[in-house]
């Protein structure tokens, strides 16, 4: 005696097996998970990158508060992460442009200290602006 036919649309009956359905369901679930991981996280940027002379020296999660120091050609630049934001606490330079950039929390926001060749940038795809005139 044959088993009862699965409840499928007549057009699919006999073409899609239970195994196919399982694989399809798993694939879809996987794609959803990937989409959430790849795009969902950008709704709230969670990573900042600190570079010296274009070279990555720190990759920081904005979810974990902390204070860090990096060494550049002009001395030490101190950065702080708190409440999902990052800022330049101190950096050598006459104008303190790095510090004056304040807290960075949006994707694409940047603080730069030229003498120490340091840049701090919040990562993310959903940048509000492609470029800033300042």
């Amino acid at each position, binding site marked *: 005696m044959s*088993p009862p036919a699965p409840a499928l649309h007549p057009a699919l009956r006999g073409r899609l*097996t*239970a*195994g*196919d359905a*399982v*694989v*399809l369901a798993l*694939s879809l679930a*996987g794609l959803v998970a*990937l989409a959430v991981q790849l795009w969902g996280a950008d709704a709230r940027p969670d990573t900042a990158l600190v*570079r010296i*002379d*274009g070279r990555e020296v720190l990759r920081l999660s904005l979810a974990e508060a902390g204070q860090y120091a990096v060494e550049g050609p002009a001395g030490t630049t101190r950065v702080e992460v708190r409440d999902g934001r990052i800022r330049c606490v101190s950096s050598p*330079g*006459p*104008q303190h442009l790095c510090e004056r*950039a*304040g*807290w960075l929390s949006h994707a694409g926001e*940047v603080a*730069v200290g*030229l*003498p120490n*060749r340091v*840049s701090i*940038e919040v990562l993310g795809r959903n940048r*509000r*602006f*492609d*470029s*800033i*005139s*300042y």
Partner: protein
Amino acid sequence: MRLFTFAGRRRVAALLGCVFALLLAACEKPDPLQATRLLVFGTVVDVATWGVTPKPAQAAFDELRTAFESWHREWHAWEDSPLSRANRAFAAGAGAALTPDLLRLVSDARAWSQASNGLFDPAIGRLVALWGFNQGERPDAPPPPPQAIAELVNAHPSMDDLTVDGEQLRSRNPQLWLDFGGIAKGYAVDRAIERLRARGVQNAIVNAGGNLRAIGSKDGQPWRIGVRDPRGPGVLASLTITGDESVSTSGDYERHFEWQGVRYHHVLDPRSGYPAIGAVAVTVVAESAEKADVASTVLMIAGPTEWRALARALGVTQVLRIDESGQVELTPALAARLHWEVSPPPTLTVVPEP
């Protein structure tokens, strides 16, 4: 029952294959936006391209890095460079041969100087140095003595003092010292865009220290440009660009120092020898980065009653000017496309077409 028949297994394998192929394709597809940040030219240069694969994009970035570094070496007004050597020759009454780029800068600067009634004056390098704005690190020192400022203003060096003598340039005025700070970034951005285009890059932004030019689009989507809030941490307003346009902002928050509670910024008025007063920031949208750069500097120097006439003289129609009291003035052409990013938007005056 068996879950997978033989035919079923083949189908499962095919399906899995498709899923992996899709995932791989997704992984391999490069980001259409390629970007780099160069700490060159004494400033930050951001370059972005759209629709260029990583390898040619990196090659273009490398070319621009080399170019900006060589322009910096060539055009530096004070460190040993072809320009500083020419400046020393002018001061000694001797002639100097310039590089092709420097000759073009001189010729462009002379035209802008004439069009702006002398408000744009790259010949006042000695005044820039007197104020200490020629160095990366200005020592913590008071503003220069008024007597020294007056002497340089009265010597009145200008672009008209330069004369062509065969293949050499000479200056009639020994106080002339060329400093292309008010035009070099714009000029360099325009040359950088030319180099990108020569490589077949159609969609790009080059931003040198806040002076930017955008060409093309992002797959039909315009480039989104923010204008910095001169007194706040973020973006004051924004606009979109498709095709080819430049945006430049001059502000008193750029190079400056404070002494006894007074802010002294780097945009010097050649008429007084002191930092320009009246405006805290001027943004200009124009067809080239050089024009936007020069115009934003000139309109920062021009007073509240003269800036519209000067905008007309320079041929710019899109201007945003913010004065010391926070009053915002802008031209109709820019008002039509500017989007305020602060809430509430500032009280603003749309002035008649310049």
